[in-house]
């Protein structure tokens, strides 16, 4: 069993990823596909006149301000564009892709943000963390031959949709389903010793090294790797989505092996 996380930034070739996942599925491999939604959300937010805003946490981490309207636009982009496209593309390449929303649950988070010199708790922020995965439902879908496709969207127990980090959601899913491998596909070759030098690829790192070298969004991927490995996943590979047959290349060792 493999969980594949593919980023939501612009420039990701969805069809290359879908074709590769379909090929693995055809060989009898069980695959769950988790995807991002950032680029489509930004574009749709612009079109709908509610442009994306960034907030900065006290520790300096940037993230999307997710008020209710942004969450609604995020759902349209994540489910209505990304999940929709991956299910179309998986079917085009012979796999039974099934989009699933509602298998991920967790609490809404009390997010803090810097406002000038002050720090405030954002009360109307629909950001969350995955704490429970409906492994039974996902396993049942896998059992029936489907390739589940999940957006980075969870639901709180109060019945609120939540914007969650796709990498860490994929780690939770991989742990909950006792997957062998978590493949994280992104728009860089892997973990780089020096961020600006794409030649400085680290082929294998420990979790500690990963967290030391990771910058910006890669920090989340290092955190996801830690959580997946702690959850019993045997292998985490962070590799590029731009390669031909990107998933299989990652399984063959492309990018960075963490753990």
């Amino acid at each position: 069993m493999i969980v594949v996380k593919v980023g939501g930034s612009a420039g990701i070739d969805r069809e290359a990823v879908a074709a590769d996942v379909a090929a693995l599925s055809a060989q009898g491999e069980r695959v769950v596909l988790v995807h991002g939604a950032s680029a489509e959300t930004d574009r749709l937010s612009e079109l709908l006149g509610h442009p994306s805003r960034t907030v900065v946490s006290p520790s300096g981490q940037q993230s999307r301000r997710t008020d209710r309207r942004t969450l609604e636009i995020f759902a349209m982009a994540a489910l209505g564009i990304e999940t929709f496209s991956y299910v179309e593309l998986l079917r085009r390449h012979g796999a039974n892709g099934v989009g699933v929303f509602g298998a991920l649950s967790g609490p809404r988070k009390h997010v803090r943000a810097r406002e000038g010199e002050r720090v405030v708790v954002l009360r109307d922020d629909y950001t969350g963390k995955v704490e429970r995965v409906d492994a039974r439902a996902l396993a049942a879908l896998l059992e029936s031959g489907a390739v589940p496709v999940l957006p980075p969207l969870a639901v709180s127990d109060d019945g609120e949709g939540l914007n969650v980090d796709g990498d860490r959601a994929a780690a939770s899913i991989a742990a909950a389903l006792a997957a062998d491998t978590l493949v994280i596909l992104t728009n860089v070759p892997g973990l780089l010793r020096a961020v600006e030098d794409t030649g400085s690829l680290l082929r294998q790192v420990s979790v500690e090294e990963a967290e030391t070298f990771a910058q910006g969004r890669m920090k989340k991927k290092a955190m996801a790797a830690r959580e997946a490995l702690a959850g019993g996943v045997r292998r985490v590979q962070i590799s590029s989505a731009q390669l031909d047959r990107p998933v299989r290349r990652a399984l063959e060792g492309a990018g960075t092996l963490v753990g």
Partner: protein
Amino acid sequence: MASSCPECGANVGVGNKPMAGEIVQCPDCGTELEVKNLQPLELAVAPAEEEDWGE
């Protein structure tokens, strides 16, 4: 403006233009407090800091 700390009862000053949701620290017991209400000013223990966000 000031209000009492819900933990230790000490008097907590919040400057003249506090913001809803603003975090302030109780000068006595050091607890992190959140401005829950502006009129009347009301403080509550702030939820724990979370290290991560969404997409």
